[in-house]
């Protein structure tokens, strides 16, 4: 029954369960018609399998009681307890779901539904190069630019990192990765799937003008009874507990990269420019069925990051001391009720973010402190109005109140578009401010999905009310009370899509929409920013065609983004008071992407994607267009994993145009500092050399006892030992140029045990 969407690389999950023990022989059937259901995902006891065309599936597990979950975009998710004491045959009745907004029906097999959209299971992601961390796969997905080494930034189809947003079960989180980018900040063991929408996402998501990354936490019942893992970077542990019908899963991770290196050598000598941070994270996940089809889920996630480093110099004026401390926590409660004709869902969430950053370059200081309370509520209802019409609507409240303090140079932190020369100390004209700001976004959204024969349409809209405040319109002067800045803004974002099924396996689709996001609270200082900043906006248009014939899928996409009202620096010699930032920035992104996917063909799953992109920005109408700081004209990524018996082997190839940089074309001597200062060439007028890296990962599973399984793995990154350029660097008088290169080879070996 190859008629409905099973997203992206889901087919990889159809690999046979390997545990010894009783075997569950199941068959999925439609509750009403009793026709078999193929292409659905069955999760049980940490195993994921897919039902075949005849609706059957098999999984072997140790004896015990499990929660079996059946899910697919075209089904109402169903969970039921299963006790295995011996081989069991089970028929499971499932109900078809109404067509979800933005993910249309009548798409056969494996390819993404929206143009450029990718969904991948965490299990597969862990088996591919990325250090065994599921969310690291995002950096290898089509549409995501190759990140600089040591960076935690995500650049999606030419959008700046702060223009895209990461959600965990619909809750926005501060960052996807820990400082340094080695690991995911939202953990690993409890991640269920990863979903990337690079542009033109639906009206249920807001406050982003780039792309959206959704991480779905796993059903806690699918987590192993316990799992421990350790490698060069860190160690983690996870486990679950079942109390009656309530399932609780928890995971924690602690880095030890720095101490591990210290055992052998001085980390400052090892790689003075490579950040060696410390990180830890923890997650607690609870799922409690309250009644038939009524489920309460809740979770708490937290992450701690620290990075202390000193870049020693022969001249104290250029010695760099940097300290970063970042803490974040989120808690969420969701009540969901599934109905025959849709679902109701209500979510409450709360979070706390704290960031401290201290930088000292010689005598020049820079300090930033921010402490934010964030929270929100979401309510969504989906209702099938008719056989070919489904309405999804909801309310989305998102609020932040932040206390901030900053001291130092205006040019620290560096913003997108700054004429930044790597290694140059910041300007030594300094100031200080402390202030607070709040951002409230209350939105309503609705999407109507319609099917007319081969044509499927989604018509949606999101209406936001923004309440933006900053504590001072002008800089503080002694104890004089100041006026604050308050704004109430209204934005209306129409969004929609059209999809036409040309043949059984070929579809064409167009998506378009308007998007807004609020200015960052950190930009509202009366000394360093502009208190009265409002919202930035963008228009997205994507179009593409998909061809699918399991196990293959091909997709061609073109995309465009027009960005407006972007917050950018006021480049005036003497800007107006408290207006160091303007909203005169604009941007334009156009590109095309070809993606070929292979899903579970003789155990092989993977994709090959080529992206051609041009992302340009303009900081003011009087300025010339320039390349976006992270523009990558060509990007090629090939990722594949081969699952065979006890072995899993994965590989990744990445080829990308180097990022733009501003070259130094001369220098002069500054007598006050005693150092040379650069004369800059055209803004982002040159590029770093092309990046290429090949990475491999191998894992061998073994059985420790009847109930305990283990695995050892080894991942080697940059297998070809290529010295990839990450930054342009210069000698002291800027007469000679070179490149700061990333680590030639990085090997990560580890072991995992689980029950």
């Amino acid at each position: 029954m190859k008629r409905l969407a099973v997203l992206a690389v889901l087919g990889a999950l159809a690999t046979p369960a390997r545990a010894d023990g009783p075997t569950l022989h199941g068959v999925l059937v439609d509750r009403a018609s009793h026709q078999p259901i193929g292409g659905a995902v069955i999760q049980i006891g940490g195993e994921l399998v897919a039902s075949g065309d005849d609706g059957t599936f098999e999984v072997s597990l140790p004896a015990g009681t499990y929660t079996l979950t059946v899910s697919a975009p075209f089904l109402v998710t169903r969970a039921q307890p299963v006790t295995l004491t011996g081989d069991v045959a089970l028929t499971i009745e499932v109900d078809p779901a109404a067509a979800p907004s933005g993910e249309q029906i009548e798409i056969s097999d494996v390819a993404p539904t929206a143009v450029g959209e990718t969904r991948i299971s965490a299990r597969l992601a862990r088996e591919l190069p990325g250090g065994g961390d599921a969310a690291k796969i995002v950096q290898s997905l089509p549409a995501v630019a190759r990140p600089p080494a040591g960076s935690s930034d995500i650049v999606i189809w030419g959008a700046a990192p702060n223009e895209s947003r990461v959600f965990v079960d619909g809750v926005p989180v501060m960052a996807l990765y820990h400082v340094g980018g080695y690991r995911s900040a939202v953990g690993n063991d409890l991640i269920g799937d990863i979903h990337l929408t690079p542009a033109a996402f639906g009206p249920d998501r807001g406050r982003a003008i780039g792309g959206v990354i959704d991480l779905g936490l796993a059903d806690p019942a699918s987590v192993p009874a316990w799992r421990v893992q350790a490698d060069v970077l860190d160690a983690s542990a996870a486990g679950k507990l079942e109390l009656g019908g309530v399932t609780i899963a928890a995971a924690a991770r602690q880095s030890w990269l720095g101490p591990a290196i210290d055992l052998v050598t001085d980390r400052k000598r090892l790689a003075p420019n490579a950040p060696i941070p410390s990180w830890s994270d923890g997650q607690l996940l609870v799922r409690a069925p309250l009644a038939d089809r009524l489920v309460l889920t809740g979770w708490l996630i937290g992450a701690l990051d620290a990075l202390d480093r000193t870049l020693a110099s022969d001249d104290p004026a250029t010695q760099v001391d940097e300290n970063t401390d970042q803490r974040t926590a989120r808690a969420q409660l969701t009540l969901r009720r599934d109905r025959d004709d849709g679902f109701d869902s209500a979510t409450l969430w709360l979070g706390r973010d704290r960031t401290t950053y201290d930088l000292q370059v010689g005598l020049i200081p820079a300090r930033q402190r921010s402490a934010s309370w964030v929270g929100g509520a979401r309510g969504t209802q989906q209702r099938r109005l008719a056989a070919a019409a489904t309405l999804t609507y909801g309310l989305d409240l998102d609020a932040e109140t932040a206390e901030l303090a900053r001291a130092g140079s205006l040019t620290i932190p560096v913003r997108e578009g700054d004429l930044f020369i790597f290694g140059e100390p910041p300007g030594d004209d300094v100031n200080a401010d402390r202030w607070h700001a709040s951002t409230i976004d209350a939105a309503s959204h609705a999407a109507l999905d319609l099917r007319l024969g081969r044509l499927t349409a989604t018509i949606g809209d999101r209406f936001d009310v923004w309440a933006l405040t900053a504590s001072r319109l002008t800089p503080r002067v002694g104890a004089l009370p100041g006026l604050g800045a308050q704004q109430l803004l209204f934005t209306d974002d129409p969004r929609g899509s059209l999809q036409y099924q040309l043949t059984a396996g070929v579809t064409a689709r167009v998506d378009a929409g308007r998007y807004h996001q609020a200015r960052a609270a950190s930009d509202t200082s009366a000394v360093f920013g502009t208190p009265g900043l409002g919202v930035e906006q963008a228009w997205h248009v994507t179009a593409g065609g998909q061809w699918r014939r399991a196990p293959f899928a091909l997709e061609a996409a073109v995309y465009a983004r027009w960005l407006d009202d972007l917050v950018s620096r006021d480049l005036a010699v003497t800007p107006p008071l408290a207006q160091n930032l303007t909203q005169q920035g604009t941007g334009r992104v156009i590109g095309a992407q070809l993606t070929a996917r292979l899903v579970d063909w003789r155990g092989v799953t993977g994709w090959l994607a080529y992206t051609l992109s041009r992302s340009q920005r303009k900081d003011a109408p009087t300025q010339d267009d320039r390349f976006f700081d992270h523009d990558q004209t060509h990007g090629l990524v090939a990722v594949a994993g081969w699952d065979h018996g006890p072995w899993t082997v994965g590989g990744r190839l990445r080829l990308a145009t180097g990022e733009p940089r501003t070259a130094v074309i001369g220098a002069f001597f500054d007598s006050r500092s005693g150092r040379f200062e650069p004369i800059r060439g055209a803004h982002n007028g040159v590029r770093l050399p092309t990046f290429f890296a090949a990475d491999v990962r191998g894992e061998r599973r073994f059985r420790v006892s009847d109930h305990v399984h283990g695995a050892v793995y080894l991942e080697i990154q940059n297998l070809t030992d290529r010295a990839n350029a990450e930054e342009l660097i210069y000698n002291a008088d800027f007469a000679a140029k070179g490149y700061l290169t990333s680590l030639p080879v990085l090997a990560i070996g580890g072991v995992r045990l689980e029950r």
Partner: protein
Amino acid sequence: MTRAIGLVLALAGCDAALDQRLAILDQPRVLAVIAEPAEAQPGQAVTYAVVVGGPDGAIEGGAATPRWAFCAAPKPPTEDNAVSTACLDAGNLVPLGAQATVTAALPSNGCLQFGPETPPGNFRPRDADPTGGYYQPVRVDVDLPGDPLLAFGLSRITCHLATAPSNVAFMYDMSYAANHNPTLDPIVVGPVRAHHDVTLTASWPAAAAEPYVFYDPASQTLVTRREAMRVSWFATGGAIDVDASAVDERDPTTSVSTIWHTPDAGTATLWQVLRDSRGGIAVQRAQVDVAP
């Protein structure tokens, strides 16, 4: 895992080596631009001198007559350099003449152009440096044959506080003392032999590190600080352990040392350039006979 760590350790360490050192003069170079007095009010006369060195020692007199100019272009707050890029454009320069030293009155609008004063219309005051200072850029071109040198001196201007509470600004005006150039004791080097290590010491009187009143923009109060000192080391040959040595403002130390790995036998020239954190400069030079 141990092997994996070993791989990490063996293969990491990654930046291309580019010489970040300035201590050995392998080509002509401006070492300092000295303003006397080190800090002055707008309209006050200041004398400027340039110190140039090269592989053969000091470069003075007719070999390199410097051309002087004030730069009239303030730098935007987004500029990381000490002076505006516009100071590279002759159209923004006020020529002061071509001679070894030049004396000129600081522009009377210095605190408006480069300081915290703003024109009518509610504009942003310029930020001070970490010591509270504002500076008039002084451009000097040294036209050595085939090797033109470009440098900027920064002449500290005494300005009123524009962004402070009025009582704090008044107290600042009453208590602030303009900076003076520090003094540096003569270089003392004993007999020197080629390819030996020699300890170089730079010392200065305790009074050279002056106390000064500083307006702290974070607390918006006046605090008394003491100048930090930094010595740059130069030689015409051999090698010096560090480019510069510094003494923090909380440290009462009045001397610093480093090691000079002497060159081949012959004559070598040493310089010590002492900078206080408020822009004052002192220079000492010595010629040294390096015995075989």
